[in-house]
């Protein structure tokens, strides 16, 4: 077993355990911390694939900004452990097979439609950050500009939604 494969299985196990923990934890802050574990291990997987820039963005934006926002809101709303509600019988017995079926279907579809592609690129030729930036500012320049507009709208939306209602 090659070292890359060992690292892959370690990180994959870590991310799956984190995702399971997200489901099993009762308190939202514990779920948020498990999600951070998933994100950091995914960043490790990106590094393993030679995508350094995506790994850095994953840690800074996802693990940093977005999760801090989540933890901030959990603290702000003083969220407590979730109340237990009983599931319907259908959900109890049909849920697990359906979830497994969804997972299997997704994996089968992705592998059938593209997973058999031979690894044509050497890791060195791929994922140069300068190439990504060139692509971002030439081929994808219109979507890039649109995202800046999207973020502007999102900022205004968040401000309007979260402000206190004016006393009339």
């Amino acid at each position, binding site marked *: 077993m090659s070292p890359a494969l060992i690292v892959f299985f370690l990180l994959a196990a870590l*991310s799956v355990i984190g*995702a399971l923990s997200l489901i099993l934890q009762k308190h939202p802050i514990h779920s948020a911390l498990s999600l951070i574990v998933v994100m950091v291990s995914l960043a490790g997987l990106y590094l393993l694939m030679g995508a350094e820039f995506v790994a850095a963005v994953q840690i800074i934006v996802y693990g940093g900004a977005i999760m801090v926002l989540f933890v901030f809101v959990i603290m702000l*709303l003083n969220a407590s452990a979730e109340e237990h509600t009983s599931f319907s019988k259908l959900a109890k017995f049909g849920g697990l097979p359906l979830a497994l079926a969804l997972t299997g279907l997704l994996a089968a579809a992705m*592998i059938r439609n593209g997973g058999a592609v031979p690894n*044509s*690129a050497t890791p060195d030729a791929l994922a140069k950050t300068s190439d990504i930036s060139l692509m971002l500012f030439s081929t994808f320049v219109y979507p890039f500009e649109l995202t800046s507009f999207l973020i502007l709208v*999102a900022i205004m939306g968040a401000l309007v939604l979260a402000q206190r209602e004016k006393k009339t």
Partner: protein
Amino acid sequence: MVPTQYYLILSAILFGLGAVAFVVKRNIITIFMSIELMLNAVNLAFVAFSQAKGKLDGQVFVLFVIVVAAAEAAVGLGIIILTARNRRSLNIERVDLLKL
């Protein structure tokens, strides 16, 4: 070199777990976090395909997904704060105005 299939299977597993969490959890914030988990699973598939095909398009797509996720988190958490203020609860069962 790790085969691409392994990454795709891991991505499918994470997406399935995210879908399960979306249905099972009762806290609005945790449901929102499971959406982020599903987005992360899709990102993993994007990067795996990008590596397999030797093209960088997939990695640029991942950047866009992350930007949209950040915008979504900002707006979504604003909505959550508003709901929590109006309903005095974070339980999704209490938000049932549209329920028959």
